[in-house]
């Protein structure tokens, strides 16, 4: 069936099978491979993207359920060559090693900071507790998100 949704600000229309999962729609039909596909069971959180402004696990939502809705993926964080503070934070604090969990972590972090611009370490850990990182032990991810909180505009960093 035909679905139309807004993805990173642009309207897209595709023909899909109703059983197609949103994560595969975004990756395979739109070529937005920044969103990763991991456990398939809504445990690992690497497939986190935003639907209608809230982070969701896209391995457990059908693409047809996103019909008429608004999707935001990790590709939308960078604007005009300027990294989002969350992305810059992951650079500054070495918030990734293999990078597999990173897109999901960053999408969750961006939403957390939009709601709570100055989160405590406990609030950061709570926000990302549904996402798994097997490299960093989470320490550097928490630092990266704190860095982003302390540098709400990356323009000044780049300058």
């Amino acid at each position, binding site marked *: *069936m035909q679905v139309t949704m807004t993805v990173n600000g642009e309207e897209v229309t595709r023909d899909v*099978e*109703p*059983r*197609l*999962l949103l994560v*595969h729609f975004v990756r395979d039909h739109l070529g937005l491979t920044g969103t990763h596909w991991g456990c*398939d*069971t*809504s*445990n690992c*959180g690497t497939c*986190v993207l935003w*639907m209608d402004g*809230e*982070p*969701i*696990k896209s391995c*457990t*939502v*059908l693409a*047809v*359920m996103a*019909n008429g809705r608004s999707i935001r993926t990790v590709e939308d964080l960078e604007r005009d060559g300027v990294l989002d503070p969350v992305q810059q934070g992951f650079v500054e604090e070495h918030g990734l090693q293999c990078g597999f969990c990173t897109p999901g972590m960053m999408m*969750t972090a961006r939403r957390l900071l939009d709601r709570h611009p100055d989160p405590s370490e406990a609030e950061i850990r*709570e*926000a990302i*507790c*549904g*996402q798994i990182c097997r490299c960093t032990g989470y320490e550097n991810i928490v630092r990266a998100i704190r860095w982003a909180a302390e540098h709400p505009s990356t323009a000044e960093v780049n300058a």
Partner: protein
Amino acid sequence: MQVPAPVEYERATSVEHALDLLERHGPEARLIAGGHSLLPMMKLRLARPEILIDINDLTGLFDVRVEAGELRIGAMTRHRELLESATAGEQFAILHDAERVIADPIVRNWGTIGGSICQADPSEDLSAVFAALRASAVIRSTSGERVVAMDDFHLGPYTTAVGPAEMLTEVRVPIRAGSGSAYEKVERRIGDWAIVAAGAYLCLDGSRVTDVGIGLAAVRAEHFRAGAAEDALRGGDATDEAFVSAARLAAEGCEPVSDQRGPADYKRHLAGELTLRALRRAAARARGQEA
């Protein structure tokens, strides 16, 4: 790679539309709300509906409010919305206790209250919570609406009173003065099912227990309730000794099985200990002390 089997899809625009679609397509049609229970079941072929009826546009079912002396929770209320509802937390602290430990924050953004209790997994937290709270469920069909008590809602594992052409629209919890409630859960890690969880609801008149509900998850308690423990407390004094003996009855009355989450003896121990902790916190809250 886990994907569901081929399935048809329609999106309902109203409760009436959803009910019409259910009637038209028969028992192989399934409603899909957040999908965080149904889609994993479909990936594993444990569920294989022929058509999914998406009810995420039924905005009238996203609601948490006080009406007619009840807290009324719309079936499509997302877990996050219940957790963020000050009204829910003020009336029943147990709801916020439980929501903090249900799945994880991302799953709570999309999973729904109605979806959780209709899944009726034996380890499901809100089933134990609503059993403790003596809630009732509003079930609609094209021929009208019926309200059933939680004891009659839960027919067994993964089985509820909601028929093939019916849908759950609301959960109602009676508000009583002098009450307190709490939920205690032990899980292996965030996002997992409970090893065991216990919820307690107490109504106190001075030191006397005028009403009580104790819910247990993951230990095969009938209707998610510790009935003998409730009976022992009802009408008596809310003393710690009474809580200790009620907790013992709760542990004795359940039938946990050994599995990858732990041996039966450990789960039975937890059922008693978590019941005791939940009763103590519920009593403190009923007395106006934060616990």
